[in-house]
């Protein structure tokens, strides 16, 4: 396997789409690239960039990438429904929304991602997955891996080791899939379990599955070995050299406009704001003094912002003026714990200085924030 710098590949001539002799004269049909970054946003931005800018008519592309711990939700999913956002924040696990459809996955360095770029016409997922299976079997013939008709790859006919998603544009398309080599299954299962109750939405739900790492089946397998095996098989099938070209997703001269794409993917409006409309109908159990209050809460959230909100408090528990002030401020706010914390603490400054009132307010607000 030879790794060469991207600049050697006359990348820019490919980019400008002028039919100058470039890569395809020496290695037509395909190109294999690997990201040097482990940042999920940067890597997703590379996918966007290739999808938008590269002409895939003459050569298809295989993109190999790995991320430091991150949860990646599908284009039309609801992060509150899919994962434990509180735990993600605590453990510093990033949350990203990709542009392709499908369900939620957990990435860490023990998981490899493979993206197959083709023209829209040549989009074909089964073929790609069969290529991956062939590569794995060539590596370890005794591995029992096969592709299901749901485009999953199963190990020992039981455990999911790969999930698939795809994005189709006007002229180009990509199919990407994960491959569990040696990911942290404990973190995976804990972050992918949503604690939020009472959510109702039409967002695409994920289908949970039992997973297993390839490493557990054969301890000699590592992410690097598996990546290389897939690249080798791709090279064979596309009749190209088994060269993997490294790219740096932060290189603006190589990939003009990439930093904007990265920023867009990190933006709250994309990650949370693109959540399809949903509603929450739940009950807060607030322990106050010697009793426990059951407080029904109903909220509608659209574009990640609170559109409507109703809190069923006992009468006069909070002065009515203050309650309506709270509800008025919540409407239009982001459904985000930080935003709401800042909001309620700021509002408290203009409240009458009453310890009882303050403790009630804090109790209610803390419980509300836990919903987010």
């Amino acid at each position: 396997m030879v790794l060469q710098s991207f600049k050697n590949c006359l990348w820019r001539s490919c980019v400008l789409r002028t039919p100058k002799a470039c890569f395809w004269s020496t290695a037509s049909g395909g190109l294999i690239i690997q990201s040097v970054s482990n940042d999920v946003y940067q890597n997703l931005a590379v996918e966007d960039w290739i999808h938008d800018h590269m002409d895939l008519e003459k050569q298809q592309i295989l993109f190999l990438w790995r991320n430091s711990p991150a949860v990646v939700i599908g284009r039309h999913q609801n992060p509150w429904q899919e994962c434990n956002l509180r735990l993600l924040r605590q453990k510093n696990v990033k949350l990203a929304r990709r542009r392709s459809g499908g369900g939620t996955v957990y990435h860490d360095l023990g998981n490899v991602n493979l993206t197959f770029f083709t023209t829209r016409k040549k989009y074909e997922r089964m073929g790609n997955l069969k290529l991956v299976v062939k590569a794995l079997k060539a590596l370890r013939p005794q591995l029992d891996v096969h592709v299901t008709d749901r485009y999953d790859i199963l190990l020992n006919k039981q455990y999911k080791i790969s999930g698939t998603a795809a994005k189709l544009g006007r002229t180009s398309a990509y199919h990407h899939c994960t491959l569990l080599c040696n990911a942290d299954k404990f973190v995976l299962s804990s972050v992918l379990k949503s604690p939020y109750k009472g959510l109702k939405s039409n967002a695409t739900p994920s289908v949970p599955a039992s997973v297993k790492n390839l490493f557990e089946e054969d301890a000699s397998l590592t992410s690097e070995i598996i990546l290389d095996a897939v690249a080798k098989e791709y090279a064979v099938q596309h009749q190209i050299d088994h060269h993997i070209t490294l790219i740096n997703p932060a290189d603006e001269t190589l990939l003009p406009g990439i930093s904007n794409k990265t920023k867009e993917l990190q933006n709250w409006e994309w990650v949370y704001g693109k959540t399809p409309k949903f509603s929450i109908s739940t009950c807060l159990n607030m322990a106050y003094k010697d009793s426990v209050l059951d407080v029904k809460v109903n909220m509608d959230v659209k574009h990640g912002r609170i559109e409507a909100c109703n809190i069923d408090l006992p009468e006069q528990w909070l002065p009515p003026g203050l309650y309506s002030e709270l509800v008025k401020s919540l409407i239009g706010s982001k459904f985000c714990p930080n935003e709401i914390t800042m909001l309620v603490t700021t509002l408290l400054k203009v409240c009458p200085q009453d310890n009882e009132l303050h403790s009630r307010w804090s109790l209610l607000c803390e419980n509300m924030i836990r919903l987010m």
Partner: protein
Amino acid sequence: VCIHRVRSCSSVRFIKSKYVCVFDKSALKFSHQQRLFRTSPVSCGQIVQFKLSDIGEGITEVTVKEWYIKEGDSVSQFDSICEVQSDKASVTITSRYDGIIRKLHYSIDDIAFVGKPLVDIEIDPSKGVSPEEDVVETPPMSHEEHTHQEIKGHKTLATPAVRRLAMENNIKLSEVVGTGKDNRILKEDILNYLAKQTGAILPPSPKAEIVPPVRRTETVPAAPKDRARRAPVPVSRPIAFSGKDRSEPVTGFQKAMVKTMSAALKIPHFGYSDEIDLTQLVQLREELKPLAEIRGVKLSFMPFFIKAASLGLLQYPILNASLDENCQNVTYKASHNIGVAMDTEQGLIVPNVKNVQVCSVFDIAVELNRLQSLGSAGQLGTSDLTGGTFTLSNIGTIGGTYAKPVILPPEVAIGALGKIQVLPRFNGKGEVFKAQIMNVSWSADHRVIDGATMARFSNLWKSYLENPATMLLDLK
């Protein structure tokens, strides 16, 4: 369109003609030409049903997930119309036509069928026939350059929409490199060509943004001496500024700030400023910084400022008080919960260090570190952000010397610290020395605090900081 035609064609035959169809225009201009049209004639203003095209893999139905346009919007060819999903694949559907959206056949979450109409688009009458098919022309007899399609005997492939764009911008199609199939010239090729040639800002399309004039500098001579000798190159095209005002509703945290600041304004503020010589403190901090680092804590100047303020508040407790709404009672707060203003992405937040009166400088540094990392991660809790009694705002880290800080209700005082500058000052012997000077600007509630109190507090605070050893005497 008519005006362009007049300019471009030297023959002025058809100033007043109204062109409704491609056929009419072409018949008038290229009377001797032969044309091959593979399209069937489409009369204009017609509503075309844009059908959902094949997704591939034998898929027949998809779910509509997001509309990018609504009825009444105008679209250009290749603009995104909607996002649909089918079996883990998300597909962006783009428009085939230029026109106006007249009807959306589906709502969000509806199932849409391949081959059935997705949207109705009213084709723009001036844009002519559906650009789905190509118009291939054999070499014409007319001599207008921009309409002259022959390039050394080759035919140039381009859709009518692209040809029109080239014509409007006085571009010879022969000079444009086509990157589409069979070297067809695409809209993008015309735009790229334009950007490179004139280096000017392109005329705005309906959704245009301001194109930063980066490329323009390349056409202007770079050497300053050249500029001095000759006049700057005049811009050949009128600059089109297509920026628009943007309105956003005031929501959430911003709304709360509006309320708080409006309340703050009701407090009669008075200000008091002074200059502090931090030369000794700078030295002290340099000595203590490595010790703090060994303990895993970053030591800034703030812990010193905060502790000195608390020592001052012990002498002047009125500054750590709160006035009730009706101005009937003043509550002297026992705890010195000193707030530190922090600038985050969301805006100004003021977490506070609790009970400074019983904390050492090191304790304060530890707590500040904690609040700062939580603040930048956006994870501050409600208890960190409530209960403050006195605030310091270190605006000097960003810049500035004097400020006029606004008191945060229900507090009665606030201090803004400017940046530390190295300035010349006179010492006791009348010699000039290098002093580390910082300015402080206090604001206080004049209903309960008078100028003299503020001045005395400030002097005390100043003396602690100018001679840090004196803090030792009063530390509790």
